[in-house]
């Protein structure tokens, strides 16, 4: 008769086993004297640990009134909104200097911008001449929206060298920022010489407010390791941030599943990366906070502050990569490019 390993008994006593596992252990315990003795000694060990840890407790004091914390939270959110615009600018500089794809669009709060990479056929070299170089350079005074009809050759699924994008002007920037902006424009002019993929930017309406929605049955919350083995190592995420949870929805047996990875920034803010078949991801995005209650894809995509929440999506063939969070759109855009580049390089 196989005896129960000690760690399983720990898990059993901690109620960390499934019902069926627990039943199995109980029936073994009923028949096995030696395992019962082990269980008792482990129970004693657990109690001692708890008692030892209990000595490491600070003097107990009454918690402050919850309303005082509410006020602090409200104060902070007002301040954060004020800073958000400046933050957007700073983030766009980072995006401009460091990262990938050429694209430009002004994203206001409450709108999703989807970057759709087209698989346009290569066009003759002659056609690529005039408008391209001027695009990013001319881009600096007026906010741009919508598609840019760039006639440059499309390039798909290759890592691209540093290439640039002009940034989003903010009327209230100081002179120092003004100068920094000029620098980034200069960088943009240099970078645009590289052939860029054709990107179409289409703003989408974001519906409603951010309400939590329960997960539906088809979703599974997985461990990081489990998700990695299921998807063959490329779980969409940002390196170096703690992962709060991984949720997976299997679609087709042979295809990579739809995944939602929640990660936490150092300030506690949560961002979510979504990767999956394009139709599913866009449905997920358009449904978040939506009113429909049939909710097959009713997963909570955002736990961010209403009002400054953003989502950004990039379509690659029949897959779509999206990221959501209460961050300036430029930051999200920078992140999505980085994830995209990392996933391609694997």
């Amino acid at each position: 008769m196989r005896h129960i390993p000690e760690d399983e008994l720990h898990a059993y006593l901690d109620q960390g086993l499934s019902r069926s596992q627990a039943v199995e252990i109980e029936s073994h315990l009923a028949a096995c004297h030696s395992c019962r003795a082990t269980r008792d000694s482990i129970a004693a060990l657990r109690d001692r640990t708890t008692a030892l840890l209990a000595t490491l407790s600070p003097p107990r004091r009454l918690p402050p009134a919850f309303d005082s914390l509410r006020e602090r939270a409200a104060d902070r959110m007002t301040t954060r909104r004020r800073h958000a615009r400046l933050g957007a600018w700073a983030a766009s500089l980072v995006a401009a200097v460091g990262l990938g794809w050429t694209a430009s669009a002004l994203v206001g709060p409450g709108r999703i911008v989807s970057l759709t990479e087209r698989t346009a056929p290569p066009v003759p070299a002659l056609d690529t001449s005039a408008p391209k170089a001027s695009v990013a350079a001319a881009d600096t005074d007026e906010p741009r929206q919508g598609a840019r009809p760039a006639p440059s050759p499309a390039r798909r699924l290759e890592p691209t060298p540093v290439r640039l994008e002009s940034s989003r002007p903010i009327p209230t920037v100081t002179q120092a920022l003004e100068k920094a902006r000029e620098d980034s424009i200069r960088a943009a002019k240099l970078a645009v010489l590289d052939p860029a993929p054709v990107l179409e930017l289409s703003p989408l309406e974001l519906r409603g407010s951010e309400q939590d929605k329960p997960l539906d049955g088809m979703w599974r919350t997985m461990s990081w390791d489990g998700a990695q083995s299921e998807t063959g190592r490329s779980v969409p995420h940002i390196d170096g941030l703690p992962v709060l949870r991984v949720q997976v929805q299997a679609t087709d047996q042979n295809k990579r599943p739809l995944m939602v990875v929640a990660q936490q920034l150092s300030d506690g803010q949560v961002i979510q990366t979504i990767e999956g078949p394009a139709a599913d991801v866009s449905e997920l995005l358009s449904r978040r906070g939506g009113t429909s209650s049939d909710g097959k894809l009713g997963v909570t995509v955002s736990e961010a502050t209403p009002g400054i929440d953003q989502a950004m999506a990039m379509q690659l063939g029949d897959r779509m990569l999206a990221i959501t969070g209460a961050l300036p759109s430029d930051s999200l855009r920078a992140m999505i490019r980085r994830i995209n580049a990392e996933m391609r390089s694997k």
Partner: protein
Amino acid sequence: MSDDLEKLYQSTYTAVVRFLYRKVWDAERAEDLAQEVFVRALAHRPDKPRAWIFAVAANLARDEARAAVRRKRHLTLLKGDPIAQPTVSPSADDSVEHDEKMASVQEALGTLTPRDREILLLWDAGLSYPEIAAQTGLAVGAVGTTLARARRRLVDAHDRQQNRTRLGDNAAHS
């Protein structure tokens, strides 16, 4: 929703303070950080608030530890200054005993690997196996194994230390 957070606050605030205290070893600081965690929860409205709160608490404690290292350098510089000794109060015997006991458990806890320690503290704070797994990136099946090891090490380290102290006392008496 806000009410849910308030309920969670009433039920877990003490556990969050304790969790933080075992990382920063300063009661007041632990309380400040715990309040900070809940203020952030109010602003961010996480959908799994309990797990979220402990994840943020762990992050704050980590940042705090880094800051403490910087402060320590500064403190060593000031160490030469004379500091008034606190006078011993009549009831100090109990508290001295408690302090000693606490120091020994603290030391035993320090012998664990950071990961084992984290998982033990999360468990002691009331998180379930799946919650611990989600927060630490461990497979749910591995949580029991880790806890088994962590508990054994904590108790063994503490026992060894008590034996040492007893031997030391005996040597001093003879």
